[in-house]
């Protein structure tokens, strides 16, 4: 024990010596280094950063193919950006702003603040009372209003007095307490004031370069190496940094270095105005493609109407529908048809209506029971029409009942819970899931599998297809759902559009192969060819 303690003591002493030595060495090294630097490079001789070269070829123009409110600025890099003194770290985009713009922005902020406050105190008495206290103490509610009042003293028509706000607020609170319809405090004068300030802008911007009424302000930054910047805003005049159209703007670029005080300004470009375009020329390739597709569709629809036999390859899932209906008839069990969670405007739901029509017709012919629980009330209304028409077409209108197609709920998992209950209680012989499905796909299909039903599914929601694959007997993948509706319906419009789609796919396939060959053999032509497909919507 004693020897152990002695060993411990000795090791601690050794550690202490080691640490002290290290400290001593590092102190001596730093001292030497300091001495060296003191002797070799005096502090006053540290080279200052030289002013960088300015940008050249500065251009500002209205951004093309947009909704307006955007100016594009392009320039050639400073000679010191990545070369020369390599001192450039960024470019600051400066725009000439009249001082009145500050007032517009402040008015916008005040307006937003006041309106948010009004929205709040319209709902709750405590908030309304709190706001009243703020008005009575003058902070901060009244400050927001007083700014708007103070901007133009001559214009007295917009004056909002504290008495006005106070009285209106008191009336509102009293009405709320008496449970009467709440008096609205909309402060209509505030938006009017903001708009009146906004109208001043064109005239004020037109006064460039009067230094007494404006200055250059930063509107964005680009890092070194970048040669363009888009100065843009949203269309809403109350959005941050809103850029009104048809106003003369002037820009310059400041080249920045690591020293904030050392920067070089460029020449000034302008005036330039922003405006929106009626025609987006960037979408011309899409227009051409859609026109070609439309023409193909019209041709094939006409051919189908004339009775031309348009071949569509059989789809296993659809071939199985008739078999499944027959099975349900033999077993004396119902058929469950689920249209999914899509709205009536979704393409998958529309395709599903066609398939439902076919299933309902067969059901009417075989006198089998059909159950269509719906998630969306509008889908339910359309599905009722579809099933009713199918029963009439089958010559059995008396067999149709409105409750074949019924509404469950608009809540995803409540709907799933109800449909699962239907599956386990009714034990349908066949479950058909066609349309738009989301997280409920596996829950439905798995329950159907447990109930021993034959299951046929189809959706264009790619992430859900794997779940249908594992739990259903037949699955239609994506576009097969649309093809199925054409295959079953045999309507000229559907067949024609399916054929047109096939030809469009063939054109795209050929384009891809041509493009790949071109870009690998003649890169220049290949890039041009590729650019026709790179469209920004």
């Amino acid at each position, binding site marked *: 024990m004693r020897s152990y303690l002695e060993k411990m003591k000795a090791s601690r002493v050794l550690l202490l010596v080691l640490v002290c030595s290290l400290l001593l060495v590092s102190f001596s090294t730093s001292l030497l280094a300091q001495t060296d630097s003191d002797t070799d490079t005096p502090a006053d001789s540290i080279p200052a950063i030289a002013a960088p070269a300015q940008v050249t070829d500065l251009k500002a123009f209205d951004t093309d193919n947009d909704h307006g409110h955007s100016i594009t600025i392009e320039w050639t890099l400073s000679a010191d950006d990545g070369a020369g003194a390599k001192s450039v770290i960024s470019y600051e985009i400066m725009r000439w702003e009249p001082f009145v713009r500050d007032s517009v922005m402040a008015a916008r902020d005040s307006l937003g603040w006041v309106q948010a406050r009004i929205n709040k105190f319209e709902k709750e008495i405590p908030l309304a009372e709190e706001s009243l206290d703020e008005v009575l103490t003058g902070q901060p509610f009244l400050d927001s209003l007083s700014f708007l009042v103070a901007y133009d003293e001559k214009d007295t028509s917009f004056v909002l007095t504290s008495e006005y706000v106070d009285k209106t607020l008191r009336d509102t609170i009293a009405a709320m307490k008496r449970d009467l319809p709440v008096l609205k405090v909309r402060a209509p004068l505030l938006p009017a004031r903001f708009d009146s300030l906004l109208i001043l802008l064109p005239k004020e911007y037109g006064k460039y370069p009067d230094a007494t009424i404006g200055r250059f302000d930063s509107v964005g930054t680009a890092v070194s190496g970048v040669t363009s910047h888009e100065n843009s805003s949203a269309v809403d005049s109350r959005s941050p940094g809103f850029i009104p159209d048809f106003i003369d703007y002037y820009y310059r670029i400041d080249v920045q270095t690591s020293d904030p005080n050392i920067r070089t300004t460029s020449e000034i470009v302008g005036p330039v105005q922003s405006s929106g375009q009626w025609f987006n020329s960037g979408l011309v390739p899409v227009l051409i493609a859609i026109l070609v597709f439309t023409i193909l569709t019209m041709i094939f629809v006409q051919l189908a109407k004339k009775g031309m036999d348009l071949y569509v390859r059989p789809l296993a899932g659809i071939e199985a529908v008739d078999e499944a209906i027959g099975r349900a008839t033999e077993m004396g069990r119902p058929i469950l048809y689920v249209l999914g969670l899509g709205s009536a405007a979704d393409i998958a739901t529309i395709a599903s209506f066609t398939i439902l029509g076919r299933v309902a017709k067969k059901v009417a012919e075989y006198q089998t029971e059909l159950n269509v629980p719906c998630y969306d009330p509008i889908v339910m209304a359309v599905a009722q029409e579809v099933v009713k028409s199918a029963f009439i077409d089958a010559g059995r209108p008396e067999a149709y009942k409105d409750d074949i197609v019924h509404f469950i709920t608009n809540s995803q998992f409540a709907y799933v819970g109800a449909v699962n209950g239907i599956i386990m209680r009714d034990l349908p012989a066949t479950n058909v899931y066609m349309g738009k499905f989301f997280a409920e796909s596996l829950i439905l299909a798995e329950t159907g599998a447990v109930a021993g039903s034959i299951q046929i599914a189809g959706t264009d929601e790619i992430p859900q297809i794997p779940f249908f694959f594992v739990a259903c007997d037949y699955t239609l993948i994506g576009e097969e759902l649309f093809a199925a509706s054409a295959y079953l319906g045999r309507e000229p419009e559907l067949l024609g559009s399916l054929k047109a789609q096939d030809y469009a796919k063939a054109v795209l396939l050929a384009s891809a192969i041509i493009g790949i060959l*071109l870009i690998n053999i003649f890169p220049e032509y290949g890039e041009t060819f590729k*650019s*026709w497909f790179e469209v920004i919507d």
Partner: protein
Amino acid sequence: METVSIWIAAILTLGIFSFLYKDNPLYKACEALFVGVSAAYWAIVFYFDNIYKKFYEGAVTAEEPDYFLWIGAILGLLFLTRLIPNIGWVSRWPMALIVGATAGLWMVGYFVSNAMNQIGNTISNIIVRDAATGFIAWGETFGTLVILVGVLSGLVYFFFSKEHKGVFGATAKVGTWFLMVTFGASFGYTVMSRMSLLIGRVDFLLGDWLHILR
């Protein structure tokens, strides 16, 4: 009050889970409650958000009424004509407008993303070289080839005008394999996210309810 809420939530959670054993009265009660509450909730939400807030406050009581909202209101009323058999056909007009307008709005977007950009991104150099060294980057080159073969064979699979036989059929078969691999990856990914949902419920039962987990 919070304790009562937790107990109700726990009993309802167990009620829904009991379906894993078999359909039973507790599940039926939970299902009926869930469906009833959600249907009523959404009815109120739709009424307040659309009819009251959007239409009534926007087009009727507003200081500057938005008269365009009346078009929507009238179309909505037309939809109700299906309750009157003689003029029920009028309800197809708003439906036609919804379907037509949606199809038109989405057409360009789908064409750009599903057709044009897809092909644009497929057109690329088959052999990818490392920017710094100039040598062939085998990993990227393999990736490009996979994309190329996958897109082309996938397109062939979705060609409905020709039977899948011969070379065409073989190419479609390759497309099928690509689809299956994609679906497999997607399946695994989603199953893991579902597991996190289950963990959330178990965490609630063992933590908030039973206080076994802290």
